[in-house]
């Protein structure tokens, strides 16, 4: 090719090349625009995800927001249960680099922990595990100083019972998450759990001074007689307000898990017992009220009663004809069986039903027991129920029933919450019968089996009860529930006081011997707190005295 041809070519190529490059540039600009478009789509999607459809970040730890529980106080404002802010130790196992070393460090700070168990927590799955609930500020400080990012401190409220065991069975307790699972804590759980920062305290009718006296005296008696347990109650006879309620063995609600099964059992509200001779009060009261007997009517107690192959005998056998008054104060089974028999099955059922003895009692605790009703309820059952066997009720029902007999004859509903007295109270017996019952109870102490309860000036009246515990096929002769059911002051009754021991160990372990002294001491200690003054006045027993065969001038030891 000649140079000129080459030059021609070069010029042509140069032009084509220029055009081709120009086209390439245009297409590159197009590509750039496409790229910007793609980026714009990405932005739109990102904005859609992050701003238009965002989700709340899950808190690193499960939000543990325990509600604040309201305090529980007694009727004088003494704090019985309160809540304190505490820290709990949790962990996020995924953030822990060397769980083995960390477990050692944690156990070094809190020697009570098991290292293997801690290690198991720290190596567990998930992002949140509890290591130790409710730890001391000192431990929190030391653990925090480890600088381990996998450890979490959660704020909780710990339920504190500053008086430890006091009124444990009334208060109940909460689980580790702060939910009430027994007693008042359970019954009023919804009311106690509150969103307000300063919730109003729940006020109970309890008086912690009386409660302490009752628990202390029962506890001493349980120790003295090596009893399985004991229980007691102090109740306002007019309002049913419970001033004290004790059931032993008891527990410390701060550490309920460390107590045995028996200690979790509220004998007063949940336990049902054949309460024995205390029940004679109901047979006598109903018979007098219905006119089937009078305080002076006499019954043949010279020999045991035989019916349908059973025999009914007296514990303190007098072997004589006895007036109704003597039957009551000397606690004659034979006499009471005849009084009940005269009265009849249907009227007995109706009367006990009106007193609320045939259904579970109502009280503001989670634990209430259902009575065991005789089946069949025939003539024999009517007689045995008359003297307190064959019908098992809660001690709470005995207390409210007794209150009804002596408060002028009005039905009493037991309660732990201050309520105004009901306006139209339901009457169960007449005022006159109630007055007679006051005199009978007083006589049982001054002239009969309850003499150990008497305290000069407090006009105590009451009825002993010594019941054999049922066992397979009959009754256990040496396994007793020994009870003293009383009220004071008998001329104008204010409070029912009941104390009972479960299987006291003594040669003679009757209610009059082992339970009446408890009542004596409780009244001696708590009457000032309850506002009852000593007085020389007394209930008028003159109408009944003619029917008492063997009069004691001065009170003497009686069983």
């Amino acid at each position, binding site marked *: 090719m000649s140079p000129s041809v080459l030059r021609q070519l*070069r010029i042509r190529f140069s032009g084509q090349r220029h055009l081709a490059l120009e086209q*390439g540039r245009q*297409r590159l600009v197009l*590509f750039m625009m496409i790229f910007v478009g793609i980026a714009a789509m990405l932005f739109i999607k*990102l904005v859609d*995800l*992050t*701003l238009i459809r965002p989700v709340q970040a899950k808190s690193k730890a499960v939000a543990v927001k325990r509600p604040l529980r309201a305090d529980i106080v007694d009727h004088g404002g003494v704090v019985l249960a309160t809540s304190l802010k505490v820290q709990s130790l949790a962990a996020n196992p995924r953030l822990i680099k060397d769980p083995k070393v960390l477990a050692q460090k944690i156990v070094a700070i809190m020697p009570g922990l098991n290292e293997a168990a801690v290690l198991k927590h720290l190596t567990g799955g998930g992002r949140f595990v509890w290591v130790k609930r409710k730890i001391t500020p000192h431990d929190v400080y030391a653990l925090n100083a480890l600088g381990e990012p996998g450890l979490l401190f959660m704020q909780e409220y710990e339920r504190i019972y500053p008086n430890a065991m006091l009124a444990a069975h009334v208060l109940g307790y909460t689980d580790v998450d702060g939910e009430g699972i027994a007693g008042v804590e359970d019954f009023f759980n919804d009311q106690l759990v509150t969103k307000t920062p300063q919730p109003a305290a729940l006020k109970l009718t309890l008086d912690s001074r009386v409660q302490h006296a009752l628990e202390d005296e029962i506890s001493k008696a349980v120790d003295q007689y090596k009893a399985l347990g004991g229980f007691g109650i102090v109740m306002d006879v007019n309002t049913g307000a419970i001033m004290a309620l004790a059931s032993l063995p008891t527990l410390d609600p701060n550490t309920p898990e460390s107590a045995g099964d028996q200690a979790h059992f509220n004998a007063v509200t949940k336990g049902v017992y054949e309460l024995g001779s205390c029940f004679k009060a109901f047979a006598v009261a109903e018979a007098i009220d219905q006119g089937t007997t009078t305080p002076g009517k006499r019954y043949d107690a010279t020999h045991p009663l035989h019916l349908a192959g059973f025999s009914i005998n007296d514990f303190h056998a007098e072997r004589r004809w006895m007036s109704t008054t003597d039957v009551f104060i000397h606690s004659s089974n034979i006499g009471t069986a005849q009084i009940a028999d005269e009265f009849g099955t249907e009227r007995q059922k109706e009367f006990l039903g009106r007193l609320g003895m045939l259904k579970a009692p109502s009280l503001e605790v989670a634990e209430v027991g259902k009575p065991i009703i005789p089946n069949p309820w025939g003539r024999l059952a009517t007689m045995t129920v008359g003297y307190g066997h064959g019908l098992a009720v809660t001690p709470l029902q005995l207390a409210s029933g007794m209150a009804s007999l002596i408060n002028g004859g009005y039905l009493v509903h037991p309660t732990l919450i201050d309520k105004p007295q009901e306006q139209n109270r339901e009457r169960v017996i007449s005022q006159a019968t109630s007055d007679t019952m006051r005199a009978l109870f007083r006589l049982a102490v001054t002239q009969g089996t309850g003499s150990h309860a008497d305290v000069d000036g407090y006009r105590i009246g009451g009825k002993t009860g010594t019941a054999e515990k049922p066992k397979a096929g009959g009754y256990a002769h040496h396994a007793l529930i020994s009870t003293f059911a009383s009220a004071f002051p008998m001329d104008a009754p204010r409070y029912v006081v009941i104390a009972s021991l479960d299987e006291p160990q003594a040669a003679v372990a009757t209610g009059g011997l082992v339970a009446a002294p408890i009542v004596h001491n409780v009244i001696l200690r708590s009457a000032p707190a309850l506002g009852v003054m000593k007085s020389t006045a007394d209930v008028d027993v003159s109408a009944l005295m003619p029917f008492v065969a063997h009069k004691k001038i001065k009170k003497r030891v009686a069983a």
Partner: protein
Amino acid sequence: MTPFARSNGGSVSRWFWTVDRLLLTMLMLLIAVGLVFVLVASGPQAQRLAHSRHATLSPLHFFNRQLVFAVVGTLVMIGVSFLSRITVRRLCAVALPIVLLATIATLFLGVDTKGATRWIPVFGIDLQPSEFLKPCLAVVTAWILAARYDDPNAPVYTVSFGLTTIVAIILIKQPDFGQTALVLTIWLAQAVIAGLPLATVGLAAGGGFAGLVIAYFTVPHVAHRINGFLSPSSTDTYQVTKALEAFRTGGLMGVGPAEGEVKWLIPDAHTDYIFAVAGEEFGLLACAALALLYLAIVLRSAKQQLDEDDPFVFLATVGLLVQFGVQAFINMGVNVALLPSKGMTLPFVSYGGSSMLAMALTMGMVLALSRRNRFMRGRIAGHKSGGINAVRVDRRSMDR
């Protein structure tokens, strides 16, 4: 004499005044940002690895390695940017067959990871030759396609497409569909820039799609493959779901560095799903800034090429930028579920030595190819190019 004086005739000084310093700054920023993201995203993976081997491993294990990769990568990138365009071309022409053979070798002696054989161990590091295949191939196809500017009748499309197809087939064998698609995209972009009629592109696309549809309904094997491609496996669905949750949790500002959860939940948090970790911990602002940085790098380099008169440089840069940009946006698109899961890394940010070095090579070549007198709009006068001696002046000044 100051070291970087313009009058200094030394090679470093000449490099400093000719290299695209804005682009270099943006790339260094990207590498730095990537280190931060690997720092927050890789701890859980180190812990998982330690657990699986019943050994202890520093939570910074992956970060420390990535730090080394980043330093080496930066040096490689700057080193490559020193090369002349002729050297870049020759280097890739020599490297391509070697890398191609290495990629084929992975099929036989590769390390099997997650069902794909893509890695071969080199000096204790598992290298992924296919990562290096892409930039070399892009440069070589650019060289082939540039011949068209000197001889319009040269069969440049056939030759370059043939070469690309060979690479694509090898990649499919691995199997690595994401890389296959990327390699084909790079070639298509270069061919279109080089003048491939758009009608042909449309026809080819339509024909290809029609062929796929026919194959889908007639060949069960193909249908199976396509189904697998369109609907990812359950583990991928899980990762995508968690990634989306991460963005939504992060919101505008994120939950804070190292406070995220997604990295504990998905295994690829430090590689393919690092964008989601960034989204959760640093929020929309960081994600948008990162995407903008990628866009800025691509647009800046592309804009530089609008003044380029050397077809090879023009086409090679376009190929390399398509590789960089498309890979970045595919990865981000997968993270926000705009695209099905592909197994593609986020350039300079995802953890990985091969990815870092290959990207350093890629962008190092972009820097090398875009070196010029920063005070002139066009090519350096008197430069020899394409076998034709022509004195080129600034295009725009000529237009005036």
